[in-house]
């Protein structure tokens, strides 16, 4: 009994952590390139919706995830293009994308399916294992790309986080177009977030408005909490996944289903508060370390 509960908690932790980790590693790519994208939440939303749309045509899990990747890619293309080709502020463009995404999804859903609410995606629905496998594989590939490839090295050179100016000079000296690497980073981040969003839709077999519930922002925090290094970022996503699963478990455990107002609702705030506390504690430690040096 107890063991069952523990294994189910472990599985649901991993299921919550996987989309977070994929989105966070994608965001890490933009941060390393020196052009941090905050449009992850928006990319996840359009990714989830695109997956559900593909399911209307009977698509399975892989096609659904690909549809999500495409949609996320499209939105991040807009952000990256606006900021790198037109010189827009990348922060403002990301915010614009986050405002645009839920509106666009609602408008398209109303126009195509006559509903701006839940969109069923039964054909997409899969058990936790296939989704987990697909996301882990992508995550691993992305981490290897960032840490073990020439591309990843050049990406970091385009915007070395220690010193942007030096990074740029190194990149220029090596004949690398930092702008092109930054744009690729935006595309990677958008596609990764799109897949992450699509996996949320696949997990419940539907697109539900607001289903991303700030996951894109938590992924952003994970990038900083992991000190902008791939594996620590991945690890902090595992911790957040565990917290979210714990909050969900607590809610289903104590909630007798007696409508609103149950104190268990407050558990939903746990991931946010824990994230904030972890961030503050980590930054404090870093600061102390710097002062000692």
């Amino acid at each position, binding site marked *: 009994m107890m063991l069952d509960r523990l294994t189910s908690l472990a599985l649901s932790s991993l299921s919550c952590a996987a989309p977070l980790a994929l989105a966070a590693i994608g965001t890490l790519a933009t941060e390393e390139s020196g052009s941090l994208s905050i449009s992850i939440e928006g990319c996840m939303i359009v990714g989830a919706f695109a997956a559900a749309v593909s399911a209307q045509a009977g698509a399975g899990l892989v096609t659904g995830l690909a549809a999500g990747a495409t949609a996320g890619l499209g939105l991040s293309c*807009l952000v990256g293009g*606006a900021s790198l080709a*037109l*010189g*827009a*502020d990348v*922060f*403002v*463009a990301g*915010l*614009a*994308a*986050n*405002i*645009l*995404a*839920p*509106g*666009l999804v*609602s*408008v398209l*859903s*109303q*126009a195509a399916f006559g509903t*701006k609410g839940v969109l069923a995606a039964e054909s997409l629905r899969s058990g936790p294992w296939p989704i987990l496998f697909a996301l882990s594989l992508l995550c691993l590939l992305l981490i290897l790309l960032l840490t073990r490839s020439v591309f990843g090295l050049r990406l970091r050179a385009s915007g070395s986080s220690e010193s942007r100016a030096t990074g740029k000079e190194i990149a220029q000296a090596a004949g690398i177009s930092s702008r092109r690497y930054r744009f690729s980073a935006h595309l990677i981040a958008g596609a990764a977030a799109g897949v992450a969003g699509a996996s949320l839709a696949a997990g419940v077999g539907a697109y539900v408005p607001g289903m991303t519930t*700030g996951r894109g*922002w938590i992924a*952003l*925090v994970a990038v*900083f909490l992991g000190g902008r290094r791939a594996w620590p970022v991945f690890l902090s996503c595992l911790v957040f996944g565990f917290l979210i699963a714990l909050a969900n478990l607590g809610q289903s455990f104590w909630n007798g289903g007696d409508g*609103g*107002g*149950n*104190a268990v*609702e*407050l558990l*939903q*705030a746990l991931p*946010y*508060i824990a*994230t*904030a506390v972890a*961030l*503050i*504690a980590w*930054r*404090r430690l*870093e*600061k102390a370390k710097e002062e000692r040096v």
Partner: protein
Amino acid sequence: MKSRVRSRIVALAASLAFAAVYALVASSDPMGALDAFFVSPFASPYALRSLLESSSSLLCCALGACLAFRAGAFNLGGEGQASIGTLAAALVALACGNAGLAGLDAVAAAIAAAAVAGAALALLSSVAESRAGAQVMLTSFLFGQAAIIGVNWAVGGPLKDPQANLLGMAAVPEGLRLPLLAPPSPLSLAFPISLALAVAVVVFTRGTRAGVEQRILGKNRLFARAAGLSPRIGTWSMAASGALAGIGGSLLVLGQAGRAVKDMTGGVGWNGLAVALIAGSDGLGALPAALFFSWLDSGARQASILADLSPDASAVMKGIALFLITATREKP
């Protein structure tokens, strides 16, 4: 300056063009939809007054975002700060009602409580930055989300009015609401209050020493430190930012709705952020930008009632406007 105005006109035209194309493509009655969208918000004094009323809380949140941005603090918690403001205002107003107090003093107390609550929430992030170096951009969002969950729980749970069908607190007594200026329209004292706050922000940012110091801090933190400016101005800016968002929330409760309900803020904090960015963090520009956003909202709402369109079309238009404004702004 000229190019700034031009980029805003381009953005405005593009977002309106989207509305026109959307109405033509998606509606079975395109002319009716266009009319509902573009004309009906201005068609009657009543419609115009409700437009002004609905822009009030948005303007307050936008002013708050302006102050934070000017000081270089990315306060992304406006939504949560407005949300906690709705709770504080409703609690104080109901307490005043129980104590038999009424009138403008009591209304002012409710608004002040909302300002304090919003400021306190924003200050958490400010302290987290000054003490530990945690980014305001991240902590303000996280604290804000946690606050929204807490407020929604309180309003729909322990503080819920048992007689009411909706998830919300008891109605604020008549004498404790913002007086209506032109009944039967919903236009209330909320709009003049937000205008007065806009004037105050403009005077502060353009006419005072602290306003200039705030700008210097926002432009270049290291220079500000080297010039011997007190970092306290950043803390105060964050507090004022949260206070203004909290006031924005209180205007929702004490104005048209007359009570605090679950999910009341409905994006007013995020929209305030967008308005501030469109206005270039300038209090004077925030007024037309807020009116523009309110127009988009009420136009899209009308179009969704009178024609078969989605009310969320306004979010698409806001996104387009924001994209174009930041993409066409003059480059430093």
